[in-house]
């Protein structure tokens, strides 16, 4: 299904809101002098239009957004070209003039909702501040305008929100508040720099929907800066593809998607994860390697006042699942769903409060000392953040060799030898063993993490969001590497991710989690094509996807799975995962709907 976008509000051929011609931005580097990070950049943005800048990290997209506002970092400088906002030339404009435009005429939404609101000021105070400063309205007027705007970003109780502190809201809510406080100024241009990158899929969709519909109403032009092609394709009218500061391709979004001209754009689109017709997953009667029963993990959070009882947060509750030998089981869910906790519990990095975990038919929850060491030589982990998972003081050879330290009967030389072989195996041959982590890119670091994990030939690997910090093209390479290595060394994998696209590519079976509970589990095709639980459906619908067409182009893909009833005699378990439906207080049962496809239900 292809989505028809409403035509942009202004096709009247007015002067553009924003015009950029031949923009050049240079950055001063310590060793090589000036380096150009934006080259000959052109842009024309009409009122009510959404133009997206897409590119991988280092493409200069953020620099362009910042150059418009005159907020380049101190090491960067505009070296040529012209930025016009309406009739005003922004390059060379004085600080006072820029300040008048910022906020009032040009709004900006940042990536990190957790830090872009001042935690020491109430929401209302922050919102009205700019309004009173720029528009000179009275306090009462400012308040009523802000309340109206909060309502428009679908905050259920605007008055309460107005008087609340930022820390009382989740990331998605804060981003909505941010959006409201920017749009209440009625800017003519909104610069949104990765506005939803830090948010989960469902929240991302909500925030983007609100942003787009609001800007259409007020005919605000939006410059959307993002690395996410699928998201951009769903929302933007025009797209500009950037690489290393150069414009690769620009035009209508649909045109570029349908018939990408440039090789690089095709690479970007091709790197988007897609379902591959892999060999049939291990047969259902394959032996389970990991069996988890009624697993419960709790965290205690200390009370603010020391005489109060600490609160107990159940991160995982009553989880039952098994992982068969050689298969990849993916756990998906938004942040706070408990997916990472499950992985850590299997590695014994987190204490469990109840339930059993059997690894190769051996109970591992009580292991310690030598037995725990032995478990850790069979089970390994790849971490999420390639920037903090490698010791900055060690070279790569030593880092990987440490994975072998606790295997008996290996000399230091042999360990180093095998580490070097493993590094070559993940595509880092030769002298890479002597380099340090800071000399590597994110993708290379993640390769080192993978090498470290599988150098001891473990039977089981937990991969916790291993590609979520990487650009799409790198992400594809790392995923491919992981799959190749899995075929080669035959390890079983627990793959934790919030990205349904990635999971679709790599998983044999999928667990869907929400707030500590498993809601649905089944084969990949069951989950993606025949989702049972409404939450799974919502998750799938919120994930923007681009599908390849037969003609070699691409099209937007909206998930079409129809809502399905719970198995007869049951209704869907709901602990907040289905909005607008009464909660079911009783604990859920996992009911098998079809062989291997289970869903959380409660009896009617």
């Amino acid at each position: 299904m292809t989505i028809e976008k409403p035509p942009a509000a202004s096709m009247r051929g007015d002067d553009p809101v924003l015009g950029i011609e031949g923009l050049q931005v240079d950055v001063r580097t310590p060793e090589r002098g000036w380096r150009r990070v934006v080259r000959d950049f052109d842009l024309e943005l009409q009122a009510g239009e959404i133009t997206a800048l897409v590119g991988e990290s280092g493409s200069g997209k953020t620099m362009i957004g910042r150059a418009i506002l005159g907020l380049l970092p101190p090491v960067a400088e505009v070296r040529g070209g012209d930025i016009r906002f309406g009739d005003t030339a922004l390059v060379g404009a004085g600080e006072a003039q820029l300040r008048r435009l910022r906020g009032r005429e040009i709004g900006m939404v940042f990536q990190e909702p957790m830090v872009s609101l001042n935690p020491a000021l109430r929401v209302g105070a922050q919102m009205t501040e700019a309004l009173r400063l720029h528009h000179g309205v009275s306090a009462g007027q400012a308040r009523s305008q802000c309340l109206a705007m909060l309502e428009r970003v679908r905050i259920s109780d605007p008055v309460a929100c107005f008087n609340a502190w930022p820390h009382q809201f989740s990331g998605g809510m804060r981003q909505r508040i941010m959006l409201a406080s920017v749009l209440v100024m009625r800017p003519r241009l909104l610069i949104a720099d990765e506005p939803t990158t830090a948010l989960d899929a469902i929240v991302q969709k909500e925030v983007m929907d609100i942003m787009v519909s609001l800007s259409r109403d007020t005919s605000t032009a939006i410059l959307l800066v993002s690395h996410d092609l699928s998201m951009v394709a769903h929302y933007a009218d025009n797209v500009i593809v950037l690489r290393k500061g150069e414009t690769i391709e620009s035009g209508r979004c649909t045109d570029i998607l349908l018939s990408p001209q440039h090789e690089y754009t095709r690479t970007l689109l091709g790197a988007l994860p897609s379902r591959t017709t892999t060999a049939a997953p291990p047969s259902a009667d394959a032996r389970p390697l990991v069996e988890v029963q009624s697993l419960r993990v709790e965290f205690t959070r200390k009370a603010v006042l020391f005489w109060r009882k600490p609160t107990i947060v159940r991160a995982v509750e009553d989880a039952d699942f098994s992982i068969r030998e050689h298969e990849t089981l993916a756990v998906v869910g938004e942040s706070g769903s408990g997916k990472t906790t499950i992985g850590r519990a299997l590695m014994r990095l987190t204490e469990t409060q109840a339930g059993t975990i059997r690894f190769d038919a051996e109970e591992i929850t009580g292991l310690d000392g030598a037995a725990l060491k032995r478990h850790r030589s069979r089970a390994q982990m790849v971490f999420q953040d390639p920037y903090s998972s490698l010791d900055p003081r060690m070279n790569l050879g030593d880092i990987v060799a440490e994975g072998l330290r606790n295997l008996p009967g290996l000399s230091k030389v042999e360990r180093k030898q095998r580490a070097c072989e493993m590094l070559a195996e993940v595509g880092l041959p030769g002298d890479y063993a002597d380099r340090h982590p800071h000399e590597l890119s994110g993708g290379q670091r993640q390769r080192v993490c993978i090498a470290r994990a599988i150098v001891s030939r473990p039977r089981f690997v937990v991969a916790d969001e291993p590609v979520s910090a990487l650009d799409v093209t790198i992400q594809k390479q790392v995923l491919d590497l992981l799959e190749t290595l899995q075929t080669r060394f035959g390890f079983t994998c627990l793959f934790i991710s919030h990205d349904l696209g990635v999971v679709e590519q790599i998983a044999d079976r999928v667990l869907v989690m929400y707030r500590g509970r498993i809601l649905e589990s089944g084969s990949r095709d069951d989950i993606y094509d025949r989702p049972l639980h409404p939450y799974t459906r919502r998750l799938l619908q919120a994930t923007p996807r681009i599908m390849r067409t037969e003609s070699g182009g691409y099209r937007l893909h909206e998930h079409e799975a129809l809502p399905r009833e719970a198995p007869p005699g049951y209704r869907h378990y709901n602990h907040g995962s289905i909005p607008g439906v009464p909660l079911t207080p009783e604990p859920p049962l996992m009911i098998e709907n079809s062989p291997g496809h289970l869903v959380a239900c409660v009896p009617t």
Partner: protein
Amino acid sequence: MKPSWIRVVLRRPNALVGGGLMALMLLAATVGALRTPYDPIIMDFDAILQAPSAAHWLGTDEWGRDVLSRLLAGATITMWIGLLVVVIAVVVGTLVGELTGFMGGWTSRCIMALMDALQAFPSLVLALGVMAVFGPSRHGVVAALGLAYLPAVVRVVRSSVLSLREKEYVEASRVAGNSELFTLFRHVLPNSLSPIIVLATALFGWAVLSESALSFLGLGVPPPAPSWGGMLADSRNYFERAPWLAIAPGLCISLTLLGINLLGDALRDLLDPRMKNL
């Protein structure tokens, strides 16, 4: 091609200047221990408060003692006290900080409570108390100042360990089956070195200054043995008539502090593989 560390040092003027100054001071301390132009202790009432001259390069003090000789002899004492205080506070403080920060638990909490109690006293007052118990002596000064600066080191180390503890490479080491102690010494300690080095250099400066303060109060190195702090303190009464009495030890203290701070910065960078190519 020169060995890489020489190139690295040459590329950093900090290291060169800091190292040079410290080498000079250590040389002075060595010379002071072996031989001085005049005896630094014996008084000469014919040469009281003389301005710098060919006979007394840096003049004489109110007892007629040669300032240069006292400066050299004082270097031995001052450097020795400064270094010992730093070594004691840093070694003990680092161990305590690393262990309490990494292991957690009740023992750690008790140790930290003790450290907090120590820190609640101004370090000089604490040192005064210790000195009052032991009576003025060189080793008393070292023990008192070492103890007084211990909580600061423990705090800094512990806070850096607390943040390192959450790093994924620490987790990764655990997953590899390494013991907690191995992980601590292999991954956490080396990565918490930067703040420790910076703190150690600052500590040296504080130790020299505190030693002079203690000497001034009559609780430091007992007279007539010379120390820079003591010399500076004694010069106060004659500042208008004999400014060289203050300038000479003051300059020595300042230059030593400058040297060790520059050296500390350079050392921190040298020990960090991330800075190698800069």
